């Protein structure tokens, strides 16, 4: 049986068992990662997994059943069980769930890939990590680490409404970090970010990162940070580099606009959102420089796809336009509850997980400035970049982030290096204070977004560029 035939068998079994809607994802995922430490390869993992997951809608609940087997018998059994599980949920039922319309399509899609990352020899990939970590060690790092990760996922989607879509998405990326150990604390520097930069691309992305070329610099910076002055405490103007701003977007905008959170579906774990649907279209989220899009069509960005995991095509939409909140990340079910007309942001972490609302590429539209211009326009402040820690409350309001490195800004010039830079604030107040934004946009990729029960890891993209925020509290410490 083909993957489509297996999926159709499972869908039919779910309908036969009472589901009013059912869909199936058959997935074949290959994963490879290699890590190096201090000039030696420490681990090489190559995992491969095949299976199918059936989702069945009965009443107010989804039932889901997944099996690691693609036989007709296993598929039918999974479909039957998914519907039965959903039916049992009627013991604790809510309002019936509807789905917004999605035009059934038969389609294929593949992410762009110049150099097949699994086709690059292990020796080449290993030598890269060995050379980069050895260089960091030679330049003073106590701990030099490097890694890459590759995902190659083929998936087949079939729904009871007639969708029949296959996609192949190749993702890869990597990075290096240097840690220096001092008396009572450690300092870390990473390139291009901790645990790397990722995209839906081939090995050409890793080549473009030039890991070895940056190894000596970040090792020396990690050692220099041990004796750098502490980031001052107080309120000042804050300039964030693009990598840190990507995480700021992820945590304080991306999660906040997830419709399942807004509706309370994640209340017990991931949390809710400070956003109220009654204010959609009118709420002032940030300054007029703040325009954020939900765009899974960006070639090569980590949150890109042709169709989401319930068959909705990739479409670019506004989330925040000129500072005003105008859009959410939604699925077909949550959109119907909220009275919206589109889903499009639902994905599952593999065949064994229920699809749920996830970020795609949620990022800032470019601004009119450059980082150089922003620094030059700042009399007094702190420039921070590359995330080291992140924490935000369950409504996505109160955040505190730490960065690997900071620099003092005085009279329009970058001055001394600062250690342990942190900043804290309240999401909408912070975004309303953004008064300068660079045009130097990079589509940062985050391959470790946790959500859901059982837990799922999402891959998201965040185009961002350096920006300035006024009167931010910095230098929070124990």
């Amino acid at each position, binding site marked *: 049986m083909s993957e489509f035939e297996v999926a159709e068998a499972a869908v039919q079994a779910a309908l036969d068992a009472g589901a009013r809607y059912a869909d199936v994802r058959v997935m074949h995922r290959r994963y490879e990662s290699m890590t190096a430490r201090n000039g030696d390869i420490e681990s090489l993992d190559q995992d491969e*997994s095949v299976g199918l997951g059936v989702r069945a809608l009965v009443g107010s609940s989804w039932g889901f059943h997944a099996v690691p087997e693609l036989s007709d018998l296993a598929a039918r059994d999974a479909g039957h069980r998914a519907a039965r599980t959903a039916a049992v949920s009627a013991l604790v039922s809510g309002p019936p769930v509807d789905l917004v319309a999605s035009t059934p399509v038969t389609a294929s899609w593949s992410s762009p890939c110049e150099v097949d990352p699994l086709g690059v020899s292990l020796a080449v990939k290993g030598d890269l990590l060995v050379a980069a970590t050895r260089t960091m060690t030679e330049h003073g790092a106590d701990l030099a680490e490097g890694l890459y990760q590759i995902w190659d996922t083929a998936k087949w989607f079939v729904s009871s409404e007639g969708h029949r879509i296959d996609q192949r998405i190749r993702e890869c990326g990597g990075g290096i970090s240097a840690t220096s150990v001092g008396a009572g604390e450690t300092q870390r520097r990473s390139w291009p970010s901790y645990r790397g930069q990722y995209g839906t691309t081939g090995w050409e992305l890793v080549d473009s990162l030039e890991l070895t070329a940056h190894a000596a610099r970040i090792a020396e910076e990690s050692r220099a940070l041990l004796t750098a002055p502490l980031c001052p405490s107080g309120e000042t103007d804050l300039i964030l580099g693009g990598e840190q701003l990507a995480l700021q977007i992820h945590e304080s905008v991306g999660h906040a606009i997830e419709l399942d959170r807004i509706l309370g579906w994640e209340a017990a774990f991931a949390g809710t959102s400070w956003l109220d649907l009654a204010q959609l279209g009118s709420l002032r989220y940030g300054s007029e420089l703040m325009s954020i899009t939900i765009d899974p069509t960006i070639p090569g960005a980590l949150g890109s796809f042709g169709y989401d995991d319930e068959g909705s095509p990739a479409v670019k939409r506004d989330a925040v336009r000129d500072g005003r909140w105008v859009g959410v990340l939604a699925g077909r079910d949550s959109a119907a509850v909220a009275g919206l007309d589109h889903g499009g942001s639902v994905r599952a972490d593999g065949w064994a997980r229920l699809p749920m609302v996830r970020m795609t590429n949620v990022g800032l539209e470019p601004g009119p400035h450059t980082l150089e211009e922003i620094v030059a326009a700042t009399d007094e402040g702190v420039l921070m970049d590359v995330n080291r820690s992140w924490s935000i409350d369950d409504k996505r309001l109160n955040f505190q982030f730490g960065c690997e490195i900071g620099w003092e800004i005085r009279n329009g010039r970058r001055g001394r290096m600062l250690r342990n830079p942190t900043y804290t604030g309240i999401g909408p107040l912070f975004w309303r204070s953004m008064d300068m934004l660079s045009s130097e946009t990079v589509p940062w990729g985050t391959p470790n977004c946790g959500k859901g029960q059982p837990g799922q890891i999402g891959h998201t993209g965040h185009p961002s560029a350096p920006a300035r925020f006024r009167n931010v509290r910095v230098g929070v410490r*124990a």
Partner: protein
Amino acid sequence: MSGTPVPAGDTELDVAGRVVDLVARLAGPAAQAEVTVTRAESALTRFANSAIHQNVAASSVDVRLRVHLAGRTAAGSGNAVTTDGLRTLVERVLAAARFTPPDPAWPGLAPAAPVAPSPGWDPATAHAGPDQRAALVRAFVDAAGGLVTAGYCRTGYRVAAFANSAGHFAQGQAADAAMDGIARADGADGTARQHVDRVADLDGTDLGRRAAAKARAAAQPVELSPGRYPVVLEPPAVADLLSNLAWYGFNGRRYAERQSFAVPGTAQFDRAVTLVDDPLAASGLPFDLEGTPSRALTLVDAGTTSAVVHDRRSAAELGVASTGHAWAGSATFGPIPRNLRLAPAGTAGAADPTGVFVAGGHGVGGPAVDGAIGDPDTAALVSRMERGLLVSDLWYTRVLDPLSLVVTGLTRNGLWLVEDGRVTRAVRDLRFTESYPRALAPGAVLELGRRAVRLPDRADGAWWAAPSLRLASWNFTGGASG
């Protein structure tokens, strides 16, 4: 999936042995191989807005192989348990090992050693159906008395076997169940959670009632200025301390890298603190991913750090023995104690199993319990706090510096001001920035509860057990408004 299925009667141990033999046949006797075969069923019934909205179950099988060949190491996994599938896995991992750079730090295979049988295994828990989970959810929702509720009930099991080419083999099985929920009143949440070996021991009614009582008591909170306050941390909050101490402090790899605060033989904690990693105290597998037998290990004995945990690689780096803490993530994150228990007051510490694993922390005589305080054990600690804060839970904690283990995070699911030993008002959530070892340092731990509560972790096989804890000081650095 193609190929002939392996014989239907083959156990996980048979499959593991088959893979070890295949490595020897294809790569010769010099190849070192270790294999873990895990078959699992997991199911989780999730509810929100007082209705079940996501109800999931998944079957899985995983064959994980690591080989060391001619000085090079590679690992891989697959889920095709057929003759062709297993052969493909072996060929793939052997090919990878031939082309990867050398691994001079290879620690060798675990030698043959006796492995204890698995502790408790409850088939009724392993095979619990969606109707049983739904009934527990129904009880939770009903007990909340009309408040909006959310959470989950999960059940599942793992059957695993290990074999390596050094002649070592082991097998085991584990089942567990957990329930974790909140009730919501006027924007305030209360929580109750429980991790057990037998689904029959889950009490949805008790959990729902306690979550609702806390939510009602947390309503209409006032804003309190940040600063240092004495605190009583309830078990869910203490579990966060244990988790961060485990990941960053007692992690043998971080210790070898000088990134851990741990200094064995040194009185780094208050004498009231005894920490034991005890994987066999509940339903768990009796060996780790490298086949090393699991055992109870005291990490802090009456305030003195006594050990960190190791897999074979971190142990070899320091010239010591593995403590049996290899797991799927240890190559990346290092070995981690994932069944950590803070010994309650009145027990003899490491060797004393009494006072452990009271499901809801109730049933002990003592001061009166009100809505904010879920049990008499915590009530006793609160009654002796002149002015401070009662903290139910911590949220989104992240490490600012691993060596000093400075952590920032927020309170969640209930925060109350205590004055003259009584809860006087609910407080809006606060952000904190605190060094966990410093908060538990000599003289900083004023009192522990007398009963530990076992709480679920997000990861399979992990749990934390802790009593409530009264600390001299906790550094709150920001309010909900900034």
